[in-house]
C-alpha cells in the first residue's frame, strides 16, 4: 500500500476517534482555565451518550439527541459547580463522585435501550469543493461527521475567545488569580459557574457523538475511559484549544494504530501512551523549571472564598 492511502486512512480515523476527545477536552480546558478541575468528564459523557441515544431513538432526530445531551451534560456539571464553587468542596472528590454517579445513573436508566440499533444516525458529510484537494481532501473533508468539522471550528473560535477577547481575559484571570479578578470587578462565581457548565455541555455532546454517530447504539459503560483520556489531553494540550486539536488527533491516531500495527506491536503499549504522555509532558515541563506554569492556571483546583486570604 502506498504511503498516501496509509496517511489518508490514519488521519481520517484519527479525526473520527479524536472527535469526542476534542469536544470533551475543549470543555475541560474552559473549566480548568476558570480554575475548576472537573474529573467528572467520564460521568457527564456517559449521561450525554445515553440521553442522546434515548432522544434520537424515540424522536428519530439525532440532532435533537445531541442537543439534549448538551443540556444533560450542562446540568450534570451544574452539580459540580454548585459543590465546588458555592460550597467550596474539594474539586477532585466532587469530580470523582460525578463520574461514579453518572456511570451508575446512565447504566440504571439505560436498561432496555441496550442492543438496539439507532434508527436514524447522524449522517456523515463530505464537503463538496474541499474534498477534491489532493491528499488533504480525502484526509479531512470526506465522509466525516458534522460534529468533527464543528469541533475543529469550535476549537479555533474558543482559542480566539480565550486569547483575543475581554471574556477570555476575564476567564483566564479568574483561573489565574481570582482575588485579583474579583478586585477588578470580574464576577468570579458567575464565570466559574458558566465555564464549568460549558465544560459539561461539550462533554455531553462528546458522549452524544459516541451514541448517535460513532457507533449508533447504546451500551452501559460505552465511554470506556474516554473521560480520563480527556483529562490527560487537557494537560497534554497545555490548556490551549488549538493544541487540543493536535492532541486529539495524536491520541485518536494511537488508538487506531493499535489495530493497524497489531502484528508488530502489542496493542496495550499504544493504548497506554496517552496516559504516559500526560505524565511525561508535565514532568518535562517540571524539569525545564517551568513547574506548573506550562499553561496551567495558577489557581487550578483552589476554591475561591470572597473576603478570605
Amino acid at each position, binding site marked *: 500500500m502506498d504511503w498516501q492511502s496509509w496517511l489518508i486512512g490514519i488521519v481520517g480515523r484519527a479525526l473520527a476517534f479524536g472527535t469526542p476527545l476534542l469536544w470533551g477536552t475543549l470543555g475541560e480546558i474552559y473549566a480548568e482555565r476558570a480554575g475548576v*478541575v472537573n*474529573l467528572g468528564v467520564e*460521568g457527564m459523557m456517559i449521561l450525554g451518550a445515553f440521553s442522546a441515544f434515548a432522544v434520537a431513538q424515540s424522536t428519530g432526530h439525532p440532532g435533537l439527541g445531541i442537543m439534549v445531551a448538551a443540556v444533560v451534560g450542562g446540568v450534570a456539571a451544574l*452539580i459540580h459547580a454548585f*459543590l465546588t464553587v458555592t*460550597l*467550596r*468542596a*474539594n474539586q*477532585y*472528590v*466532587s469530580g*470523582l*463522585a*460525578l*463520574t*461514579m*454517579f*453518572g*456511570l*451508575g*445513573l*446512565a*447504566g*440504571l436508566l439505560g*436498561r432496555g435501550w441496550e442492543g438496539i440499533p439507532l434508527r436514524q444516525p447522524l449522517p456523515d458529510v463530505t464537503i463538496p469543493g474541499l474534498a477534491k484537494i489532493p491528499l488533504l481532501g480525502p484526509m479531512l473533508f470526506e465522509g466525516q461527521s458534522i460534529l468533527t468539522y464543528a469541533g475543529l471550528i469550535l476549537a479555533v473560535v474558543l482559542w480566539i475567545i480565550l486569547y483575543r477577547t475581554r471574556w477570555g481575559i476575564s476567564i483566564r484571570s479568574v483561573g489565574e488569580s481570582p482575588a485579583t479578578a474579583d478586585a477588578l470587578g470580574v464576577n468570579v462565581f458567575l464565570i466559574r459557574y458558566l465555564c464549568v457548565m460549558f465544560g459539561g455541555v461539550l462533554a455531553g455532546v462528546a458522549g452524544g457523538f459516541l451514541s448517535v454517530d460513532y457507533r449508533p447504539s447504546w451500551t*452501559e459503560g460505552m465511554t470506556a*475511559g474516554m473521560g*480520563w483520556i480527556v*483529562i*490527560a489531553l487537557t*494537560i497534554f494540550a497545555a490548556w490551549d484549544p488549538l493544541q487540543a486539536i493536535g492532541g486529539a488527533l495524536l491520541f485518536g491516531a494511537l488508538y487506531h494504530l493499535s489495530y493497524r500495527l497489531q502484528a508488530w506491536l*502489542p496493542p*496495550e*503499549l499504544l*493504548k*497506554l501512551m496517552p*496516559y*504516559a504522555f*500526560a*505524565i511525561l509532558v*508535565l*514532568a518535562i*515541563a*517540571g*524539569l525545564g523549571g517551568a*513547574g*506548573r506554569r506550562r499553561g*496551567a492556571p495558577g489557581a487550578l*483546583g483552589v476554591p475561591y472564598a*470572597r*473576603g478570605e486570604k
Partner: protein
Amino acid sequence: MKRVGPFVLERRLAPSRAAVIGVSVLAVLAALLVMAIIFWGYGVSPWHAYATIAKSTLGSRYGLMEILRRTIPLLLCGVGLVIAFRSQFWNIGAEGQLLAGAVAATGVALYSGIPAPWLLPTMFVVGFLAGAVWGIIPAFLKVKLRVNDVITTLMMNYIMIYIVEWLIHGPWKGPTMRGFAYTDTFPKAAWLPTLPLSRVHWPTLVIGLVAAVLAAFILARTRLGYEIRVVGESPDAARYAGINFLRVSLWVMILSGGLAGLAGVGEVGGIHHKLLSPVQVSVGYGYTAIIVAWLARGSPIAAIMTAALFGLIFAAGDVIKVALRMPFQVTGVFNGLILFFLIGVELLMYWRVRLAPKGERWTGKAGSSES
C-alpha cells in the same frame, strides 16, 4: 458570620468531633433518602428494599462474611489513603497500586520457585514493595518537578491496567488456560487460608486491622506522623520548621501505595488464585477507598468502620442484583450520592448556629452576605 433572622452563623476554626460525626451521619442518611426515591421510582418499595438488604447482609452469617470479604481491600487501601490525605497528598491511584501488588504477588506465586512456608510471606512483602514503587513515582514527581499528584496517580492507574492486560494476553498467559486471558492457577501453597464456609482470607484482614492501628500510632506518636500532619495542615509552617518535603512525601506514598499493594495480594491470593483482567481483579476498590478515607476524616481507626460500611454497600449491591432484580449500577449511583452529600455538607461542620439579638455589634470580618 451570617445572619439569618434572629440566628447568627458563626465560623469556627476546627470542627468539634461531634460535628464531624453528626455531619457524616447526616450525609449518609441523605444519600439513603435519595436512594429510597430511586428505589421507589424503579417500582421497588424502599422499605422492602432496605429490609431485604439488611436481612441478607447483616442478618446472616453468610451475609456478614460477604461484607468482611469486601471490607479487606477497602480497609487496606482506605488506611493508606487516610495517611496520604493527611499530608495533603491526593493519591487517586490506589486502584493502580492495588494492581501493582497483584502483579507482583502473581509473579512470586507462579515464577519464583520459593518453597511453601515462605511463599505467602514473600508475596505480601513483594506486593507491598510493588505498590510502594508505583506510589513513590508520583511522590517524586510532585516534590521534585511539581507535577500535580492527582493527575499522575490517576494516569498511572490506567498505565497499570494496560500492563496487567499485556501480561495476561502475552508473556504470562497460562498454558493450562486454553488460550483464555488468565495466568495459570497459583499452586495451593500460594492460596491464602479462608474462614470456613466463606471467602474471607483472614490473614489479609488481620494485616488490615494491624495496619490501621499502626497507622494511627505513626500519625499520633512518631516524628514522621508529626511531620505528615504539619505538611498537610500548614505547608508554610512545615517549610519554616525545616521539614524535608521529599522525605515525608516518599514515606507517605511508600505506606499508602504499599498498603494498596497488600490489598492486591489479598485479592489474587485469597479470591482469584490467578491474575486476570484488571477490572475483575479489583471491582473499583481503589476508587471506593477514596470515599472510605474521606469519610474517615483522617483517622485510620475510623477507616475500619467506614471500610466496613462500604463493604456492606458492596454486599448490598449483590443482594440488590439477585433479590430485587435491579441492575448493579445502583451501587455506583449510591456511592456517588454519598460522596456528593459528604463534601456538600462539609462546610456545615465549620459553622455554629447561635441565637443573637438584633443590634449586637458585628464581630467578624465583612463577608459576602453583607456586601
